[in-house]
């Protein structure tokens, strides 16, 4: 696939989409949709997105919403909040006690990130909540559902955890048909707050998913995230997180399971803007058929961020001759008293390990399954909540 310029594509579809978005975004009007010449989209072509005239969708009724949601495993306990085709499905939605709904607020436009720019141009609706000081709000499942053809949604969520507050968010994404889901989360974690963000991206095979998660983590607060990126024709999970005060802790972990002709992408920027913070990242990708996997993880350490401890590991397992992985782990470091490292490996299943299992009577197919499972389970162990880990495991092997 070549990096074709947007200017070169004059389809009415593209024009219509860009115009619709560009009318409300000067940035988008100026740059259009990024081509592969744009570094951030070097490995993830958005061409398929530009070929469709995305329309606003009609809301989903409760029954269809329920049907869609049942396609994936989600927690039976806790509260459920559902967006169907970009609108709140009120009859099925509730919030935990003590969690307050707030008005949407102005956010950092993140002008250099296309997913945010697009959301900024077309965004509407979303969930804005605040968990008050020292409240443990328990578990909230946020389901983003789509059904239809050539529809796009651009939800804007805002989650604020006040001092010492905590919340576990299960972020479920599923749908049917051909759609573009482009949600944005703005997450602010005050001193000592803790958010566990577990995401299951299981979009339809013709869907596009461009999520952008913007997180500010204050002192002693913790953003512990895990994403199972496993659906969509083109799907990017993009995290921009700032460790803003000492002793903030961030985990941006994930597993990508990519098959068919799909492309899954996990892009993250972990920005250490204060001293004494820790960040941890483990991302594993398994690729089969002619699938493509992308990992772009950057750790940026400011001059003031002394005593930073940053660790990043990304591993890819190629199960087919035609699968492809593109990985770009990046360190940008301006402080001298730091400990930062990253590691990356790419390869196939280990022949010796296969041989070991086969010599003990395990059939080849089963032996392969065992090894792939072991590879992924290793990362899934990082999901602290046991029940959610089980749910993701189910999602993985269903």
């Amino acid at each position, binding site marked *: 696939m070549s990096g074709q310029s947007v200017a070169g594509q004059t389809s009415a579809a593209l024009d219509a989409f860009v115009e619709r978005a560009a009318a409300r975004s000067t940035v988008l009007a100026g740059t259009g949709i990024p081509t592969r010449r744009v570094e951030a989209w070097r490995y993830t072509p958005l061409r398929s997105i530009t070929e469709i005239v995305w329309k606003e969708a009609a809301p989903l009724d409760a029954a269809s919403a329920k049907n869609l949601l049942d396609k994936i495993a989600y927690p039976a306990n806790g509260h459920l909040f559902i967006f169907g085709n970009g609108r709140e499905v009120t009859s099925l939605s509730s919030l935990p006690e003590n969690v307050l709904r707030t008005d949407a607020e102005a956010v950092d436009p993140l002008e250099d990130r296309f997913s945010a720019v697009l959301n900024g141009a077309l965004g509407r609706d979303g969930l804005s909540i605040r968990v008050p000081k020292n409240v443990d709000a328990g578990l909230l499942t946020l389901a983003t559902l789509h059904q239809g053809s050539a529809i796009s949604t651009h939800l804007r969520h805002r989650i604020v955890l006040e001092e010492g507050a905590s919340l576990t968010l299960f972020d479920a994404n599923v749908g049917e048909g051909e759609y573009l889901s482009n949600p944005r989360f703005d997450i602010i974690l005050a001193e000592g707050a803790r958010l566990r963000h577990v995401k299951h991206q299981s979009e339809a095979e013709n869907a596009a998913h461009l999520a952008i998660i913007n997180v500010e983590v204050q002192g002693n607060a913790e953003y512990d995230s895990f994403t199972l990126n496993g659906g969509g024709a083109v799907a990017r999970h993009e995290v921009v997180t700032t460790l803003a005060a000492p002793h903030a802790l961030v985990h941006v972990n994930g597993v990508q399971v990519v098959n068919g002709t799909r492309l899954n992408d996990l892009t993250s920027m972990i920005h250490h803007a204060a001293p004494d913070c820790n960040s941890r990242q483990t991302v594993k990708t398994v690729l089969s058929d002619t699938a493509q996997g992308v990992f772009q993880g950057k750790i940026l350490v400011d001059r003031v961020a002394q005593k930073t401890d940053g660790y990043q590991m990304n591993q890819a397992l190629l199960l087919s001759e035609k699968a492809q992985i593109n*990985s*770009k782990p990046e360190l940008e470091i301006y402080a*001298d008293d730091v*400990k930062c490292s990253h590691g*990356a*490996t790419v*390869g196939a299943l280990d022949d010796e390990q296969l041989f070991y299992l086969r010599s003990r009577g395990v059939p080849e197919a089963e032996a392969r399954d065992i090894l792939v499972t072991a590879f992924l389970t290793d990362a899934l162990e990082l999901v602290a909540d046991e029940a959610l880990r089980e749910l993701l495991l189910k999602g993985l092997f269903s």
Partner: protein
Amino acid sequence: MPAVTETREAVEKLAKSSYEWGFETDIEMDIAPKGLNEDTVRLISERKREPAWMLEWRLKAFRSWLEMKEPDWAKLKHPPIDYQDAHYFAQPKKKPGPKSLDEVDPELLRTYAKLGIPLHEQALLAGVEPAEGERLPVAVDAVFDSVSVATTFRKTLEEAGVIFCPISDAIREHPDLVKQYLGSVVPVADNFFAALNSAVFTDGSFVYVPKGVRCPMELSTYFRINARNTGQFERTLIIVEERASVSYLEGCTAPQRDENQLHAAVVELIAMDDASIKYSTVQNWYPGDDEGRGGIYNFVTKRGICRGARSKISWTQVETGSAITWKYPSCVLAGEGSIGEFYSVAVTNNHQQADTGTKMIHLAPNTRSTIIAKTISAGHSDSTYRGLVRMQPKARNARNFTQCDSLLIGDQCGAHTVPYIESRNMTARVEHEATTSKISEDQLFYCRSRGLSQEDAVGLIVNGFCREVLKELPMEFAVEAQKLLQISLEGSVG
């Protein structure tokens, strides 16, 4: 953090000391007028008495260059370069063909002496053969500004069948080889700086090692920028035939300058079946003053192709100089079972900026590559490792191992790692690891408690940090490299 403070002081002191090799030689020059256009290209070609095809080649490159843009993706900042504000040709005026040492400009000989080429150049220029049993010396093709003034050892090499000469001679004397290979690894329009080089290169080395010949000595080019405002556009072409091998050394020092000087070299290496090329560089161009003014801008395209099965190309570099380094020595592994290696130490200080790394392109099965990159940043400098490992669909069972380590000295510098890993073959295996840290207090304490002075301890740790790379250098260079590291970092500690 006393250690860090002291090291920083040392670094600051060093910045104030003048550039050790910043002398300038006063020799009569034949300089082309400033500016770059087709006439400049024609003039260079004419002065070099080149055949018509070469002029055409240059003009093609020049025309591509006109349509290209200077790359902006590297993590480098510099004022715009005015390509019209430089001389593109400078040639020392000399009597044709010095027959003996007496005829060589004495000023030139003094320059060699100051350069401290650690060999018997003076005598060798006079034709003195090494005594029986003496270690085989290094052949030096000394490039004085843009023209190779003297080439030593030509005869010994000729007996072995090795061609080692200025590229301008090769264009005239071995046109078939040059025509076949020049631009075959780095095409004229490969990138902005390579196109510029292709249009205006004035000299460089040509090496041809025929089948089955193990080059009897290490080949070396010492070159330096000498005349004010002359860009240095070196072109090196090394061809090693089946089962042959060569080790090539490149090192440079440059005089102190007030204006930025552009340096855009191109190096092409070609290795056939079972051939082996080892290319070592110690780069110490003038880095600029402590405000970062006046250093060399070094934009280099180095690429080797392992065409033959089981061939091997190994790049080793120690980069301590230049205000700006933009350099990615690469290997295209096209022959089955071929091997690419990249060993690098990059030291930046004051306001130096380095964006350097490598590309390993695995095209064939069972190819292997190793990348060891060590980066040391001090002062206000920024240093970036930028590398690409690509496994193409046919690269069955290919292997890569990459290790990038950065050491930060002082809190005003930056160290960055930007590796790209692309794999399209499931049986290929890529491993990458990178670390960034400062000199460990524990290591310092350990050394100090055993009676080492602070500066020795820092020196020892830095040398240890770079050991994996330094041990790859030929002996002559290893000594020089260690000295350079000391000068660059801990030379005046305490």
